[in-house]
């Protein structure tokens, strides 16, 4: 056998410099995102679950709500719905946001398979930041999954001519208000589902209740107070407020300051919770030999 090239990184002490740790985290992030790309890319499922199914759902929702929008006095109750095109755009943003966030539920469900396949143990065997892995996994899934429908939505908004933006910079705000909470949400779900005994159940639980409570198909004023409160802990709710406010109602940064602050706080909390779940899950695995926490 040939000798293996060189020595690896010198064993080193645990106390690597913060710079080293950050550099390694970036490598892990890149590798994990690429792995996601390979796992998902070109899969027929993506085309269906990210484009065809959301589109069909959008059509169904539009026709289901249409009888309610075309009623006398709608302009007073919900001005937006008085214009069918704007109603469609409202529902499309909802569908887009939901697709975005639900793709992470889906990828977390796939990620939970790593526990069954034995590859989760390999991740725990390696000296890589676990948080970097779950964050990157969510990010990779998002980029792979949602671009299709995002392109479609942009095309549709352009065609419907309903976009009313205060400032071109708001497009960047919209983008970040979707991406950052979604990635945090993905990391949270990944860390939750890999340790969950019944990941399929969580998956089911996050499908219908999420669109219902987040105002995907209804404006939040239509929801009862308790449901609005429950929905506000889902990052999708805040994202939709920002996206719709900025794209459909021409709101600027100042108008959306509170939702943005809330989203930032929520994202931070989700990441912290993810880190906590990973620590607890790994510690439990080391104690009991079972990679299950919930």
């Amino acid at each position, binding site marked *: *056998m*040939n000798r293996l*090239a060189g020595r690896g*990184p010198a*064993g080193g002490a645990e106390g690597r410099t913060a710079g080293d740790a950050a550099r390694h985290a970036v490598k892990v992030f890149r590798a994990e995102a690429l792995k996601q790309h390979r796992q998902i890319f070109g899969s027929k499922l993506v085309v269906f679950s990210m484009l065809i199914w959301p589109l069909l759902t959008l059509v169904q929702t539009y026709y289901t709500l249409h009888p309610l929008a075309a009623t006398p006095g709608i302009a007073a109750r919900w001005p937006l719905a008085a214009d069918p095109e704007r109603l469609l755009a409202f529902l499309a943003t909802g569908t887009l946001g939901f697709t975005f966030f639900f793709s992470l539920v889906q990828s977390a469900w796939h990620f939970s398979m790593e526990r069954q396949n034995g590859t989760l143990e390999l991740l725990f065997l390696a000296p890589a930041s676990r948080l970097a892995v779950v964050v990157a996994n969510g990010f990779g899934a998002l980029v792979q999954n949602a671009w299709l429908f995002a392109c479609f939505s942009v095309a549709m908004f352009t065609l419907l001519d309903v976009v009313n933006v205060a400032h071109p910079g708001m497009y960047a705000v919209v983008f970040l208000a979707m991406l950052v909470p979604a990635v945090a949400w993905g990391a949270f779900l990944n860390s939750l589902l890999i340790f969950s005994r019944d990941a399929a159940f969580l998956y089911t639980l996050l499908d219908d209740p999420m669109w219902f409570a987040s105002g995907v198909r209804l404006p939040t004023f239509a929801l009862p107070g308790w449901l609005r409160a429950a929905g506000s802990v889902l990052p999708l709710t805040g994202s939709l407020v920002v996206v719709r406010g900025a794209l459909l109602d021409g709101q600027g940064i100042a108008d959306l300051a509170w939702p943005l602050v809330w989203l930032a706080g929520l994202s931070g909390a989700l990441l912290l919770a993810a880190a906590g779940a990973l620590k607890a899950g790994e510690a439990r695995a080391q104690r*009991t030999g079972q990679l299950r926490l919930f």
Partner: protein
Amino acid sequence: MIETKHLRKEFGGKVAVEDLSLTIPRGRVTGLLGLNGAGKTTTIKILATLLRPTSGTVTVGGLDPGNTPHAVRRRINLIAGGERMVYARMTGRENLWYFGQLYDVPGKLLKTRIGELLELVGLTAAAGTRVEQYSRGMTQRLSIARGLINDPDYLLLDEPTLGLDAPIARDLRKVVAELAERGKGVLLTSHYLAEVEQLCEHVYVIGDGRHLAEGTPGELMAQTGCHRRVRITVSELTPEVEAAALAFDDRVRIAPQADEHGTGAVIELSHPGDVAGALTTAVIAAGGAPSGLEIAEPSLEDAILALSDRSVAVVA
């Protein structure tokens, strides 16, 4: 070296490993044997930082995995056989690259190393093929390359040849021996005792999570009093032959064997001494006509079986 002292691991009150002290020095292959459920995999997972001992200590090259897990993880790796522990949708090369990133292997070095490892496990030609198209043996070879991606100081091998084709298993054994020669500390568990006998300079035998015996394979055989087995086949078993054989040693066992004449038998004796010649002479002197003679040297397998029988007796 890896050292464990009075290792104990229990899962919810059930003890899997009890008072186990092992030393795995660099530069040799250390064997860990036991019957199923003896605690081998638990022990290996503790050494790999995947499990934390309930009590007792582990040090890896002087480091405590409890305090500095990442530093320990950089120096070790685990290869478990029979499991598909790589990503199916990625190519072989991509899998190795991915794990190289997790281990923070510098880019240039990683590139060279991946090439070498692919060569080593004979997957160079299939490097660009997705793993889902690999055969079982290829997948397992890839997982062996994966286990070497961080050029670990200590390699933990849990049944690495399980399910491998014979030639591949032979190549792997060669690799393992060479890794040890180059100064790596290797811990090997295997069902194939011949493999352990061939590779390991030092073997620990455990049963029910406890230390039963240790030593070189030869020492273990001597300790357990394993015997040579002599088998003489005769085409006709007359009462005289039977009497002579039993008179030679009362541990002789005779099993009638139906051959074309319907009268044959196998005369078998396990004995510590070299008795094949004497027994054969006795059989011939009684008028027997041996048609076959087999002498089986004692194997590690016999030693393990003897040890585990003994431990069952102790537990019972």
